[in-house]
C-alpha cells in the first residue's frame, strides 16, 4: 500500500510534469525562433563561403582568422586586419562612451526624480517611460533632424554668428554617440531610479551629522547604495549600444561602420556568410563576458546588503 509520503511524492512529480507541459510552447517557440538558430550561426562560422552568398559545406577556419587577420593575396601571409580592428575598436569605444555619458546624465536625473514627492514621482517616471517606449527609429530620426547641417543646432549657431559655415555633425562618430546617448538614456535612468527610490535618506542625514560634505555623502553613501542600479543600467545600455544597428545606419552614414553594419555587409554585398557568422559570435562573446561580470558583481553586492 502506498504510504502518505509516496502519495505526496507522486503528486509532486505530477505537478512538475504539468509545469513542464505548461511552459513547453514558450520554450519551443524561443528555441525555434531565437536560441536554436544561434547554434547554426556557430556552425556556419566554420564553413566556406558560397559564390553567391550562403555557404559550401566544407570545413574552414578562414572566417575566424579573418575576424582580426587578413591574408595577403600575393604571398598568403597573415597580418592584422586594419579595417576590422578599427571597427571593433570604434564599436567598443562608442559603446563605453555612450554608457558613461548616459550615466553622467542619468544619475542626477534619477536622483532628482527620487527626491520628488511621492505623487509627482509617478509623473516624472511617466515622462521617462514615454521616450523609452517610443520607436527607436523615430527617436533616431528626430536626432537626425536636430544635428544635420540645416538642423536647429546649426541654424542657431549660424544666426548667432558663432560659426560661419554649418558644423558637420551628421555622418560622424560624434553623431552616432549623440544618437545612442539620446536613445539609450531612459535605459540608464529607469534602473538607477529603481535603486534610488529605495534609498534611505536617514543614512544621508547621518552622514551630514558626522560633518560629511555634499560630495562625500554622494560618493560614500548614495553611490554605494545605488550601485546595483548603476551596474544594471550600464549593462542595459552597453549591450544594445555595442550591437546598435539603426543608430549607426541612420546617423553614421556609410563610412562610419559599427560591428552590426560590418556583419550586415557580409550577408549583403560581402557575400561572406561564414565571416558574418564569426563576427556575430564574437559580438555575442563580448556581450556574454559583460553579462557574466554583471552577474558576479550583482551576486557580490547582494551578499553584502543581504
Amino acid at each position: 500500500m502506498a504510504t502518505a509520503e509516496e502519495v505526496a511524492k507522486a503528486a509532486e512529480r505530477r505537478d512538475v510534469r504539468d509545469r513542464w507541459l505548461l511552459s513547453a510552447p514558450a520554450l519551443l517557440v524561443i528555441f525555434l525562433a531565437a536560441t536554436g538558430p544561434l547554434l547554426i550561426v556557430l556552425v556556419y562560422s566554420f564553413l566556406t563561403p558560397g559564390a553567391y552568398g550562403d555557404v559550401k559545406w566544407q570545413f574552414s577556419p578562414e572566417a575566424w582568422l579573418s575576424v582580426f587577420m587578413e591574408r595577403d593575396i600575393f604571398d598568403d601571409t597573415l597580418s592584422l586586419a586594419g579595417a576590422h580592428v578599427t571597427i571593433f575598436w570604434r564599436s567598443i569605444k562608442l559603446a563605453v562612451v555612450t554608457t558613461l555619458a548616459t550615466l553622467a546624465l542619468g544619475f542626477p536625473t534619477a536622483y532628482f526624480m527620487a527626491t520628488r514627492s511621492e505623487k509627482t514621482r509617478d509623473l516624472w517616471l511617466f515622462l521617462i517611460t514615454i521616450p523609452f517606449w517610443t520607436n527607436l527609429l523615430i527617436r533616431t530620426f528626430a536626432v537626425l533632424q536636430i544635428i544635420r547641417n540645416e538642423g536647429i543646432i546649426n541654424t542657431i549657431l549660424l544666426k548667432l554668428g558663432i560659426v560661419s559655415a554649418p558644423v558637420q555633425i551628421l555622418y560622424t562618430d560624434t553623431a552616432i554617440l549623440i544618437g545612442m546617448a539620446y536613445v539609450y538614456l531612459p535605459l540608464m535612468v529607469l534602473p538607477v531610479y529603481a535603486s534610488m527610490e529605495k534609498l534611505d535618506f536617514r543614512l544621508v542625514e547621518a552622514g551630514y551629522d558626522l560633518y560629511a560634505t555634499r560630495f562625500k555623502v554622494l560618493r560614500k553613501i548614495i553611490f554605494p547604495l545605488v550601485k546595483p542600479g548603476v551596474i544594471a543600467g550600464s549593462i542595459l545600455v552597453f549591450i544594445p549600444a555595442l550591437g546598435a544597428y539603426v543608430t549607426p545606419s541612420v546617423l553614421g552614414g556609410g563610412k562610419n561602420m559599427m560591428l552590426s553594419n560590418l556583419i550586415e555587409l557580409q550577408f549583403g554585398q560581402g557575400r561572406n556568410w561564414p565571416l558574418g557568422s564569426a563576427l556575430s559570435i564574437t559580438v555575442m562573446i563580448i556581450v556574454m563576458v559583460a553579462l557574466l561580470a554583471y552577474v558576479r558583481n550583482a551576486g557580490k553586492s547582494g551578499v553584502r546588503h543581504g
Partner: protein
Amino acid sequence: MASNFSIKHQPGFTAIAATCFVVLYLPIIVLVAYAFNAANSTSEWGGFSLRWFQSAWQNTQVIDATLRSFQIGAIAAVLATIFATMAALATTRTAPYPGLTFKYAAINQPLMVPEIVTGVALLIFFSRIKIFTGYSGLGYLIAAHTAFCIPFAYLPIRGRLENMDLTLERAAADLYATPWKTFRRVTLPLLWPGILAGLMLAFVISLDDVVITEFVKSGGQDTLPTYMLGQIRRGITPEINAISTAFLLLSVAIVTLFFFVSRKRD
C-alpha cells in the same frame, strides 16, 4: 541657517535633470512640428499644413506597411501573451524544482543577445527552411516576433502572479471546483491586469522592431519601421515626419494605457 539646509540637495543635479528632460523631448517636438510643415523639405518652414499627413494616407506603400505591422503585431502579441501566461503559471508560486532556473534563463534568452545576432541567425535558419519548403509568407516574421515578445509579455504577468497567493485557489478547490473552473473563475480574473499589460507591451515591442524584421523579411514584406528606415536612408521628406507623428501618438496612447493598467491595484 540650518533650516535652509536640505539633506536631499546635491549641487547641479536639478539643472542636469532639467536639461535631460528638455533634451529628451525637444527633438521629438521638432519632429512633430515639421510634420505640419507646408514646405517641400524639412529645411524651411512654409506655414502650417496637413498635406504630408494626406500624402502619407494616400501612399499605398505606407498603408500596406502599416497594415502588415498591425497584423504581425497583433498575432505575435496574442500568441506571445498566451505562451507567456502559461509559462508564468508554470514558473511561479512553487518550491524550486529541477529545471526552474533553466526555464528562467531560456525565457529571458532573447533579451541577452544583441538583436543583430538574432537577426543574422534567423536569416540563415529561415533561408534554409524557405528553400526546403518553398513557403515565404509572413509566418517567419510572426514566429520571430512571437519569440522576442515572450520575455516582455512574461515580465508583468509573472510580477502579478508573484503577488497573488494561493489562498483563493485553494478555497475554490475545497469547494469542489475543477482545476479548469478554478483557473477560469479565480486565477484568470485576478491575473487579467497582468495579462493585459503583457499583451500591450508585446504589441509595442513587435511594432517597434526594426533589426530582426529587416533581416527576416522577404521582398515586399516591409513593416512600417523597415519602410521608414529605407526612406530615411534615401533622403527625407516631411512625409516621414507625418508618419512618425502618427506612430508616436499610437505609442503614447498604448503606453498611457499600459501605465494605468499596470498601476491598478485591487
